[in-house]
């Protein structure tokens, strides 16, 4: 029974990682940028939700929507101001900028409100279900469902819709995409908007589930989500989800075996092992350059 419970624990944890990783992987997939600020957009989403619920007295869904909109706008703004100019420079320059943006968001936020954490109000009634003697909360189930639905939705957008094709075209060759009549700037903005909105949603859900939010809360989940995305094959949407679950389960198993201090190390070891045997992640196609 303990282990069934641990499995559920792992899935719940993993679906949070997966949720953040979806947006990460999406942005990465299109402009090949490790958007380190993604975790901070997630943080802003969490605080927007907090503000919406406790100050504006909104209920869950409107708060979620508001957070998603705010984050979408923030994401697009970041892209327009900080990343757009760097499209033709090295990836590493863009990465450093992303680190800079991440620090800037964190510390501007701290400058204006301080670093102290905030407790999330309870907006969703919480029930606990018993499955095979293990307990699982309604919130975990909700997160799991939201993650799976968003994953399917995203996969559909990127691979079936017209805008998705445009995104992938832009991802590969911006000039050639332009020649198809694609508006590259708008396509990238849409990508950022979707990715950031997802981060915002993840922020609110994280807040509700874990109840604690603070200005630096995005760093660790951001990093973990990035690991999850890489595990699954970065840029690949179902990969992000599977990577998230895998990471969640591995971490839980390690903690449950009494090695909680080695949990993060275990996460990285799994990552490295998978990369050694599958250098592009679980679902990554080994994109060896054709010679």
């Amino acid at each position: 029974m303990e282990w069934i419970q641990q499995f559920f624990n792992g899935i719940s944890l993993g679906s949070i990682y997966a949720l953040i990783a979806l947006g990460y992987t999406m942005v990465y997939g299109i402009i090949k940028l490790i958007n380190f600020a993604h975790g901070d957009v997630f943080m802003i989403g969490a605080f927007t939700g907090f503000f919406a619920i406790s100050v504006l007295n909104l209920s869950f869904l409107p708060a979620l929507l508001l957070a998603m909109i705010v984050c979408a706008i923030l994401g697009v703004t970041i892209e327009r101001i900080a990343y757009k100019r760097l499209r033709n420079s090295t990836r590493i320059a863009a990465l450093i900028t992303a680190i800079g943006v991440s620090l800037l968001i964190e510390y501007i936020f701290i400058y204006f409100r301080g670093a102290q954490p905030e407790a999330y109000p309870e907006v969703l009634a919480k029930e606990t279900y018993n499955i095979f003697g293990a307990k699982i909360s309604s919130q975990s189930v909700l997160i799991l469902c939201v993650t799976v639905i968003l994953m399917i939705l995203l996969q559909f957008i990127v691979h079936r819709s017209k805008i998705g094709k445009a995104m992938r075209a832009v991802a590969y060759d911006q000039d050639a995409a332009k020649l198809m009549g694609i508006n590259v700037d708008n396509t990238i903005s849409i990508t950022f908007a979707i990715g950031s909105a997802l981060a915002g949603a993840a922020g609110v859900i994280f807040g509700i589930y874990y109840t604690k939010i603070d200005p630096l809360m995005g760093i660790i989940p951001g990093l973990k989500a990035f690991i999850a995305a890489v595990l699954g094959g970065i840029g690949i949407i179902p990969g992000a989800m599977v990577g998230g679950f895998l990471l969640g389960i591995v971490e839980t198993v390690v903690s449950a075996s009494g090695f909680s201090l080695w949990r993060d190390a275990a996460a990285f070891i799994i990552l490295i092992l998978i990369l050694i045997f599958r250098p592009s992640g679980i679902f990554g196609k080994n994109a060896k350059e054709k010679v």
Partner: protein
Amino acid sequence: MKMINRFWKFMLLAIIIYTIIQLLITTEVFNLFYTNTLITIAINIILAVSLHLVIGITGQFSIGHAGFLAVGAYISAIVTMKLALPFPLALFAAGVIAAVAGLIVGIPTLRLRGDYLAIATLGFAEIIRIIFLNIDYVGGAAGMVVSRTTNWTISYICLLITLIVIINFTNSRHGRACVAIRENEIAADAMGINTTYYKVVAFVIGSFFAGIAGGLYAHNFYIIQPASFGFLKSFDILIFVVLGGLGSLSGAVLSAILLTIVSTFLQDYAETRMIIYSLILILVMLYRPQGLMGTREITDFFTSRKKNALKGGENL
């Protein structure tokens, strides 16, 4: 010979710089604080230049350099504090063990490319940190108290050795092999270069000097803790290299100096220091994405060989 001549010019310059600074220290024009800042600058230059060899020269996107810094710091601290052996030996041991760590990390990860390599190196650095966190012998989370033995002279000597080795390596057929890997790995392979070997060599040399820097670091700051070697520290080193200009050794040196000074100066602006720091990062990248020096070297401004494209410092 021209090359030998250049070496002595370099040494002469090095000795002059040393003498001036030493004079300022002994006459107490530079107080402890300035001296300390100089030592920190030396350590940061060593870190920047050692990572420059991996990223700037060989083109391998490693973002876990702090891991090797940690290995060097802990090993040297164990040698002096627990084994009570002399400091220079500790520094050497720090370099060697860090190089071994580099070898262990490098062999499996360097076959990865781009962002996958980046995250794997970051992962290894975190693993190293967590290992120290879990070893009670070195104090676990609380860390290890280390007595201060690093001084300006020894830091400067280490810095010089680092520069000479890395510049000499870069300006040889071996350095060219590394640059070839950076430029086009498939073509380098087709030219008979054992790409894996050179990636690992560059990585091991880089780790060796990061280890030396770790030894200096540990004996300069009184205490070492796993928390000081997290990924943010790796990013700091990465930032030196990128801000200076990828592929430019003097750029890495210059930005290590500038950023250390900026960071020390900003101590007085507690609340806003991170905001200013991050703004500097963003603005430099937006307006000079190629970094302060681009791929040029300081010496390019003095010599006529402007088009010499192989970067990493002039021949010594």
